């Protein structure tokens, strides 16, 4: 390949792909076979981090940034005046292999603008994956974008070579989508997602009977929503997210704070801040749903439609439900321990193990790594020192905030001053 041309294309097409958040490279269980190259059995590895603090695990590029669509929120929209480029299939294969051999990456994340038609585009994405698997004997991780509107047959082929497939619904509500991307319909996104979901179920069932059934998208599906571009509240966002987790068996939903890239007056203007704190609170909520046993309606509902920015969603839930506390860490069940603010799942497991040997006191809990600043108001342990005052939620919140500094201190005061 010609170095200079590739260099130019790589700059353009990596820059265009960077708004896709997913960088996961785990969960695939694809082992190295026949002394080939690569192995995707272990946990994911972040080989580097960009200066914005995001993990670099995959070579994340577009095949091309030519696109026939004109979605307002997208940097490669047809009407945007930017440099365009397109990789050849072989160029992507060579880059992936050579980066992988140097231990730069875990694999490839290939997306694309839509040129000519959905099928024409999807076919080329599948070609890259197929070449990597069959010609290069590559066992690293491959994440392909499902192009909305691609045929079932192509989606099936994609799943045979890729570890993960994803299609970004981008805008959390249908009304928002209509406003910002009038050429696109929600069902175009859903169709490939349903196809992949059904194939995964079917291949898994067959594998139970016939052992050499090939893997089909072993790392599952994911999607992404843009936050803060189309006016949805957190309740709407998390309801959509919950809907997709439940109905399409998604592995992950990603939330991407909108980075202003356009003067379109339907969108936040260039120069306005990326809502990073809000994005963080949504991820925390997502974790509470998936790992801490919370139902989404406990955290966000008709009466509580937006997450607090100054405190985390678990603390916020606890303050609204003081009647559930205090919890005795020496006797409480796992699912109740997980609800104590300041206790992560790692601490929960440590407590469950350690309390089989002796009753735990504050000193033990502190050494184990519990964030006592938050946790102390919500638990009792083997000590007669505990919060005896009958404190109100506001009082507890005040005490906690007084004794902590948020890493978001600066953006907090900015964002709050809007209402102040």
């Amino acid at each position, binding site marked *: 390949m010609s170095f200079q041309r590739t*260099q130019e294309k790589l700059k353009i097409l990596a820059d265009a792909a960077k708004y896709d958040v997913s960088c996961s490279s785990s969960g695939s269980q694809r082992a190295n076979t026949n002394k080939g*190259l690569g192995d995707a059995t272990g946990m994911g590895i*972040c080989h580097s981090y960009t200066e914005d603090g995001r993990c670099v695990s995959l070579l994340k590029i577009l095949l091309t940034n030519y696109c026939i669509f004109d979605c307002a929120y997208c940097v490669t929209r047809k009407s945007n005046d930017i440099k365009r480029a397109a990789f050849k299939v072989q160029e992507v294969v060579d880059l992936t292999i050579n980066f992988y051999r140097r231990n730069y990456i875990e694999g490839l994340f290939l997306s694309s603008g839509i040129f000519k038609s959905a099928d024409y585009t999807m076919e080329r994405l599948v070609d890259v994956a197929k070449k990597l698997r069959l010609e290069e004997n590559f066992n690293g991780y491959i994440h392909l974008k499902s192009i909305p509107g691609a045929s079932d047959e192509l989606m099936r082929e994609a799943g045979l070579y890729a570890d993960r497939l994803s299609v970004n619904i981008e805008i959390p509500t249908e009304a928002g989508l209509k406003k910002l991307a009038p050429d696109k319909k929600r069902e175009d996104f859903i169709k490939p997602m349903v196809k992949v979901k059904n194939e995964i179920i079917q291949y898994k069932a067959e594998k139970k009977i016939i052992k050499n059934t090939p893997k089909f998208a072993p790392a599952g599906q994911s999607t992404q929503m843009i936050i803060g571009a189309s006016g949805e509240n957190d309740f709407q966002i998390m309801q959509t997210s919950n809907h997709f987790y439940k109905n399409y068996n998604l592995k992950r939903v990603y939330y991407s704070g909108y980075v202003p890239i356009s003067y379109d007056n339907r969108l936040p203007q260039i120069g306005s801040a990326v809502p990073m704190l809000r994005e963080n609170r949504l991820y925390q909520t997502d974790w509470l749903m998936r790992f801490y046993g919370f139902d989404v309606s406990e955290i966000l509902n008709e009466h509580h439609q937006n997450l607090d920015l100054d405190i985390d969603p678990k603390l916020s839930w606890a303050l609204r439900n003081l009647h559930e506390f205090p919890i005795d860490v020496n006797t409480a069940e796992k699912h109740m321990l997980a609800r104590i603010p300041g206790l992560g799942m790692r601490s929960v497991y440590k407590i469950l193990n350690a309390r089989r040997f002796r009753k735990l006191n504050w000193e033990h809990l502190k050494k184990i790594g519990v964030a006592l600043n938050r946790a102390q108001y919500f638990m009792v342990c083997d000590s007669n020192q505990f919060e005896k005052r009958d404190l109100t939620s506001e009082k507890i919140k005040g005490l906690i905030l007084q004794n902590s500094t948020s890493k978001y201190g600066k953006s907090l005061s900015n964002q709050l001053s809007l209402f102040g």
Partner: protein
Amino acid sequence: MTSKNLIYDGTFDGFLSTIFYVFEHKLEKVTIQNEFSIQQGLFCENERIHTDEDKANRVWNGVKSKLSSKGSYQLYYAFLSEQNGIENLLLDYITYAFSNVKKVDKDFAHPSVLKIAQIAKSVGREKHRMEAFVRFRLTKDKIFFANIEPDFNVLPLIEKHFKRRYADQLWVIYDIKRGYGLFYDLENVEIITLDFPKNFDFTKTEDAFFAKQEFEFQKLWQDYFKATNIQSRKNMKLHIRHVPKRYWKYLSEKQPD
């Protein structure tokens, strides 16, 4: 009673042989040091321990029966930390494990157990970092070469990962701090020591040693690294937490243009 200071050869087998000796002689006031870091204590009698593979295996099997599988690998990980005084902490841990009917490696309210778990975690983190931060460079003799300077002695822990992953290429990973490396010859991994030319600069990719295409791919990787960053989200504090500065010198993407 004077206390005894046992000196071993620095290997894991040597350490386990020392543990055997402690239990065999029912020693109570005892410290363990490796031969590279002897410090003469007052009122203490030095004794050299001979490394004996059979005795080491007996102790190791005992350890494995008294700890969960995670507990025994944590013990090995903690040993590889090479931290000052780690041997004494491990001795305390093993003594506690042997004196208890229950498997104690999850007794996180016990000071030695918690400490070993924490040290093992840092070693595990360093292992994972090396799996991430190794940067192979293709030499003129078609070997993918990487040099590292890990905080802890993690080469023994990363061998399997690289052997499985890069099964079809020749590679060397060299720990320049400890002066030894791993070489994979397409079949097996061997431990090697290399003599480098005087004034060899490990941070530079010089064309006398490295293949021509190496420069192109390093450039492409640097360009990619820059292009994939979102300027309006810049957060150097987070960046440095994930990629601490001490690792920068051998990361191709962090080299100045």
